[in-house]
């Protein structure tokens, strides 16, 4: 049965049959994905997978999710032509998908609302989540407040400092924020700590995973809830430009905003898919988060994927000026898209991203998140490569309010 009167249809969640299909029963995308977790968590992952299977075929669930997306998150988000910015891309036409205009200011709200509804179906009353930039933490705290769920957010101590404003937002929304002081004190360590909490409290707690990494079924669930970005954008760009774009560009940390906009275009073979990772201070000195472009295949946080690791499998700490891209792993579906050649991944340095950040602000009056600025910087290069006739769709995954502290320091404002 298909629900058609919302922006979301049941086909958007169930059986979209892209690239042969959803991950197989072991949660594999080719050789990537799977489950590498303590046995104690397997029943909980099975429970989440089974409930999600029911939910995505349940018109009531889809209706409720759709209702929240429209009346709470502010969907559909618009497309915006950015001609003055495009002049710097060799005249190629760049169109932004405005996820920055959603409630809470980033695409993260889509996944969070879906999973919070799933949490209620699971009969659980406590949400935990990891956060890097703080956007996923804010979104999770928001959904918890909306649905009356207890909420604990794990955030690396370094990130707490970088994103102090978001820490305050989470607290105001009623969440407890736990600064994680072990390891690199960033996103990867926050994920470790969230898993430790989950295994101890799994009977009443849902781990609201924020990206398309982690053990099966998280990569599939998070993708499906983020997929609305591309579903909308595909319809909208056909309306706006009368054709599909030549390329879709998105920033890639864990990879949820990128998969969200890519997925609806995977079967459109004429549409190039470009993901932009954080090149940090440059790959030469090793201070980057170039997981797909410089990493190797391994296991991190429960999933086989590309990882930044040394020759003995120890995770190498990543670096990016953008907390949301500062992660040494990546979703297994991106690993798969890379290896099959369907998507291409590139690095964007801190400096390139900050240039694009300032450029969009000055030419279009839009202050993007530094994460999204990596996609913008990528689009500037891509536009020059593809020429003035090209049409580029860029996922503006979030807004830059949270990044003002970083910008003030970087630009001496």
């Amino acid at each position, binding site marked *: 049965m298909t629900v058609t009167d919302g922006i979301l249809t049941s086909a958007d969640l169930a059986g979209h049959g892209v690239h042969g299909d959803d991950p197989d029963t072991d949660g594999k995308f080719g050789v990537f994905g799977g489950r590498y*977790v303590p046995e104690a968590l397997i029943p909980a992952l099975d429970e989440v997978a089974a409930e999600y299977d029911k939910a995505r075929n349940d018109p009531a669930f889809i209706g409720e999710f759709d209702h929240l997306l429209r009346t709470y998150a502010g969907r559909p988000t618009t497309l915006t032509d950015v001609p003055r910015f495009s002049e710097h891309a060799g005249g190629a036409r760049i169109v932004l998908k405005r996820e920055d205009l959603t409630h809470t200011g980033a695409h993260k709200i889509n996944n969070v609302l879906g999973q919070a509804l799933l949490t209620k179906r699971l009969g659980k009353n406590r949400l935990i989540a990891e956060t890097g930039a703080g956007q996923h933490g804010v979104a999770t705290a928001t959904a918890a407040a909306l649905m009356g769920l207890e909420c604990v957010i794990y955030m690396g101590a370094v990130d707490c400092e970088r994103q102090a404003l978001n820490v305050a937002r989470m607290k105001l929304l009623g969440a407890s924020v736990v600064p994680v002081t072990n390891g690199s004190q960033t996103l990867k360590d926050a994920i470790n700590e969230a898993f*430790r909490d989950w295994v101890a409290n799994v009977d009443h707690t849902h781990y609201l995973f924020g990206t398309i990494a982690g053990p099966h079924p998280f990569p599939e669930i998070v993708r499906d809830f983020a997929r609305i970005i591309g579903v909308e954008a595909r319809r909208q760009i056909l309306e706006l430009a009368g054709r599909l774009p030549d390329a879709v560009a998105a920033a890639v940390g864990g990879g949820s905003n990128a998969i969200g906009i890519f997925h609806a275009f995977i079967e459109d073979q004429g549409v190039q898919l470009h993901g932009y990772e954080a090149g940090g201070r440059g790959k030469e000195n090793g201070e980057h988060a170039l997981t797909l472009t410089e990493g190797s295949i391994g296991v991190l946080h429960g999933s086989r994927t590309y990882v930044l690791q040394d020759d003995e499998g120890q995770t190498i700490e990543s670096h990016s000026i953008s907390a949301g891209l500062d992660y040494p792993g990546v979703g297994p579906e991106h690993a798969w898209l890379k290896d099959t050649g369907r998507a291409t991944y590139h690095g964007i340095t801190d400096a390139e991203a900050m240039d694009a950040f300032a450029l969009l602000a000055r030419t279009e009056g839009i202050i993007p998140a530094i994460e999204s600025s990596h996609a913008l910087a990528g689009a500037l290069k891509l536009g020059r490569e593809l020429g003035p006739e090209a049409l580029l769709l860029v996922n503006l995954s979030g807004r830059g309010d949270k990044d003002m502290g970083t910008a003030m320091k970087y630009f001496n404002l």
Partner: protein
Amino acid sequence: MTTLQTVFAKAKADDRAALIGYLPAGFPTKDGAIAAATAMVESGCDVIEIGLPYSDPLMDGPTIQDAVHRSLVNGTRIADVLRTVEGVAKTGAATLVMTYWNPIDRYGADRFARDLANAGGTGTITPDLTPEESGPWREASAQAGIDTVFLVAPSSPETRIKAVAECCTGFVYAASLMGVTGARETVSEAAEGLVERTRKQTSLPVCVGLGVGTGAQAAQVARYADGVIVGSAFIRRLLDAQDEASGLAAVRKLGAEMAAGVRA
């Protein structure tokens, strides 16, 4: 090389549980780990698990995280882990490596199994390797003649216990509680039920770990399990010690207390 089979047969003949101690390689130092593990054996441990330090130990509590972090800061490499195994195996204890999967994956499953066997290691415990993903490792281990131990948990339904036990040789590791490693005030009541449920699925020995920190707790667990696994409590003694000698003395004292416990 002393095998797990020998250890459990001997413990059974003595009508007691086996005592299994855990310590990460490279902690408190590379040589200090061998000295501490030797002290654990001399004070009564039948089996030693040498931890392979990993940057993202997501099922470990603060004590083991701390020790592992120090070990990595000490520059511990897999070659050091294997050297530690070699040193400890010489004491006559059955010596296992406990490790998250990625370091083996990266090192190469066949190569790691072979090198571990050559170092005198008797097998591995891999807490994040599920039956579904364990095929290559079980093949490599069988080829090298070493045991594979996997974990069951209180949350495991019978079908999972069966699947995990079928992948195990040596023994089945029953995690006593839902949570991370670390000594607790009391041993979870879930442990006994889990051991009972596991015995229905396998004739292998069943050992209990997570949360055992005192001789009295060891005695309590020894009443229903074939082996008692102690990790964080040993590490805590070393972390709290002023110097190496007092650390080793504290380890010996705890080892003796635990050894008395499994014989109570």
